[in-house]
């Protein structure tokens, strides 16, 4: 009798396990489809059909159910990003346009004022560069700024005739001084004036901001420490008098 019960129990367990595993498999294969449908619902109407089929085909190409879920989960952020891109292109935001125009005006005015202020220093640096070594006063550097490559104008701080990768540290004497004082960045104000880059992204502004945060960060920490000490003192006194 015990053996019969044992066999029956094993059969029941096997059947239940089979049903559960089938169920789990179905649920797991439902998740990517659900995620795709959810993601697609965030898209503009015109893009839905195409991307749903395309994304389903990508998920279908993935081996294993967890990889499918991972890929499908990514579509949620993809859909939001695509939707944002489409919306920004189709309806120009007045607030954004106004903000951009204001920033551009402030940048131009700020850069013009700073250029006038620093002009004597810049002329002096330019003369020093010209007198010390052969070559032009300015050089250019390429950077990636907000996803686009742009060329910034700097004061030349290296010898022109030694521009090989191995000679990259051939800095002129004037170059060493202007690099130490960060004066080689000053001509970027010309880039700001021409609208290539914002004044807020000027390396000197970054430096000032770092110094500013450093100074106030230290002050804040000190103040915070003193406040904590006062609080502890207050509690100690209250305990004593209670």
């Amino acid at each position, binding site marked *: 009798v015990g053996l019969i019960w044992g066999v029956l129990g094993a059969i029941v367990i096997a059947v239940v396990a089979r049903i559960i595993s089938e169920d789990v498999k179905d649920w797991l294969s439902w998740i990517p489809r659900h995620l795709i449908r959810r993601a697609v619902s965030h898209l503009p109407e015109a893009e839905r059909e195409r991307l749903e089929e395309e994304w389903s085909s990508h998920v279908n190409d993935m081996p294993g159910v967890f990889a499918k879920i991972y890929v499908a989960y*990514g*579509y949620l952020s*993809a859909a939001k990003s695509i939707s944002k891109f489409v919306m920004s292109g189709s309806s120009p935001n007045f607030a954004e346009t106004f903000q951009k125009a204001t920033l551009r005006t402030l940048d131009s005015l700020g850069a013009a004022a700073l250029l006038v202020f620093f002009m004597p220093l810049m002329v002096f640096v330019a003369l020093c560069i010209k007198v010390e070594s052969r070559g032009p006063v300015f050089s250019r550097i390429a950077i990636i700024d907000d996803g686009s490559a742009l060329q910034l104008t700097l004061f030349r701080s290296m010898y022109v005739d030694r*521009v090989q990768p191995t000679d990259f540290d051939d800095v002129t004497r004037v170059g060493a001084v202007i690099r130490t004082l960060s004066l080689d960045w000053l001509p970027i104000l010309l880039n700001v004036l021409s609208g290539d880059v914002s004044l807020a992204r000027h390396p000197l502004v970054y430096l000032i901001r770092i110094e500013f945060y450093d100074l106030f960060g230290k002050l804040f920490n000190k103040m915070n420490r003193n406040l904590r000490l006062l609080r502890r003192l207050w509690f100690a006194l209250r305990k004593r008098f209670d």
Partner: protein
Amino acid sequence: MSVEPRITGPTLKVLGALLPGRDELSGADISRATKLASGTLYPILFRLERAGWLESRWEDNDPKALGRPRRRLYRVTELGAQSARAAVKDLVEPAFGRVAWV
């Protein structure tokens, strides 16, 4: 709407996967080649296609005959190839010390 796409590391990876040989690749192929997650890849493909740097088409076979959804195949356009090369040139040249002197 043709907006110049942002040149980012992932964008360059996508173009790098599609440029050699100018083959047609599906999203899954590009994802495998670039190791980019779907959340990053598809917005890039979408932007590049809108900018005219990529073009895409459905694979020819019938999905019913295939028994699976159709793949969307991408390839780089002439404009895309030229623009990508120009962008890469802009970025790579100074890294090798070939600074452009004014």
